[in-house]
């Protein structure tokens, strides 16, 4: 149960970090290439995922530890996504695909 919640929280945090990163023009270019993504849509999905991360962490560990765990987890995935953008940007491409604008 707690392991399951932890895994869900990690996935949710990763989704949030990747979407918020790709919603920035510079990162989109690095990960996907020219053109632009559906920036608003990525933000509209990315932020709720950040909130979901906190909810899952609090469900696992209670308010005190859960809030801290959520903060730390988001920090950790932000670092992970930043390093992916720096060294393995193409790994983010699959996430970017559904948000690419048709013809570009």
């Amino acid at each position: 149960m707690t392991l399951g919640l932890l895994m869900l929280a990690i996935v949710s945090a990763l989704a949030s970090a990747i979407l918020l990163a790709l919603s920035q023009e510079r990162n989109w270019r690095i990960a996907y290439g020219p053109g632009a993504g559906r920036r608003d849509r990525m933000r509209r999905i990315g932020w709720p995922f950040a909130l979901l991360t906190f909810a899952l962490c609090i469900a696992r560990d209670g308010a005190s530890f859960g809030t801290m765990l959520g903060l730390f987890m988001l920090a950790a995935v932000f670092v992970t996504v930043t390093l992916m953008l720096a060294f393995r940007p193409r790994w983010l491409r699959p996430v970017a695909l559904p948000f690419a604008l048709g013809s570009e």
Partner: protein
Amino acid sequence: MADQPNTSFRPSMNWVHTWAGVVLGALLFIIFWMGTMSVFDREIDRWMQPQTRLASPAAPTTSYDSLLDIARAAEPGKQLTKLTIGTANTRAPFATIHATYADKTRRTLVVDTITNRLIPEPASLGGTGFLYPMHINLILPGVWGWWIVMFAAIAMLLLLVTGVIIHHKIFADFFTFRPEKKLRRSSLDLHNLSGTIFLPFHFLITFSGLMVFSGWYTSIPWYVAPASVGEPVAALINEADQYGHFRREAAGRPGGGVALAPLVQRAEAIWRVRHGTATPADYIDIDHIGDAQGYMAVRGNAPRRMVSDVDEIVFDLATGRIVKDSTPTTTRTVQKWLEGFHLVRFDHWLIRWFYFIGGLAGCLMIATGFVFWSVSRRKRDAQTQPLKVRFVEALTVAAVSGVILATCAYFVVNRMIPEGASPGGFPRFVIEVLTFFGAWLATAVHAGVRQASAWKDQAWVIAGLSVAAILLNWLTTGHHPIAAINRDLWAIVGMDSMLLLNAVVAIYAARRLGQSTLTVGDAP
């Protein structure tokens, strides 16, 4: 990065950030590094004090009365008057006793609570006896170290706030790291990245660090809380004993003698009901033993709560009655929450590791801030003010890689000198501390001579020392990582893997520095 203070707001904040950083960065790095080590201070203890690598007790219960007997037997013929007991827990699987006798003799005893036998006192200060004190007061004599660390913490808050102000686009920094760019740019990226992503942690850890000693600051003799701070706060800080611990004088006539263990169990039962979760006693303070006014204060710490040991129940040892059961004020609970946040005594391994990572991020932020300054200055000032640039660069190397190297040397020498040996007449723990400072001094001299090539040299030495520490631990204790896993010695597994990681990172850094076309005078 203006030399002269600019009167408009953002440039003036930039000026403050730059100069406070350059002047205090070395000190801040040392405090952050030692604090990061202190997250795992008990684990470092287990590694440096192999005789304490015991199996975790299934339950922390101890026959507290037999600890009294052990303390009495340690100094035959002397009257035991005072005893404090740190109970066994998963991270420190033994009881630590501080005994005081009628003639003021003091003894520290370590007791295996499963066999009730004394463990020979380790000839090493380990993490809790050296790295942690370095974090809180730089082991300077008297009150100087405390004041210096306190001002450093205030400076850190100032640096965090000014750092936020001088940044235009905080959120863009979250994902920006460009290792392919020039050193000046990529070090600034790392500085901003580690600074912004961990900002909440860095702010709270610095602020809570200040607040741990809030009682101490306000106990300055001339300080009287002004009425304007409001009654609860004034009451708290004007309290005769800042930490609210129970004290009373001895009666001078014999008494006491109630069995201790049932009293401790009673306190634990009260807390279990009050908090709805198991709250074992973690610290016991017995005073005036054998006197009619003898008492025992029991403090509890629920390992699954953030708040540190706010509960204290005091028993009269003549009657076994409760003489004080603390009900903390709101102010004190807040202070205790901040203290609990800072001291990380709770039992949550994931968060403990995140503290470690957050601490390392703080170290990285300070180090890259330094590198950015040096690289920016080098071109401009190398001709006009070569001494200034050279001095700050040497200071940076000594403060960053020098402290890391000295810490590794501290570990290595611990495993090189056998327990009980005293080369040159010094006990081993003295040699360990001398090695730390000797190695540190050497890195400073080396940095002054070799300038920026010192980074590469010292990275190789750090890698070598880390590997040597792992091998020496294997040779002297037989606990290589696999053996440690089989024996559930997770402290040793963790310590060895961090040393290995340290070696890998150092080798990577050294190779990168070796390949780079940076001229002499360039940092990593």
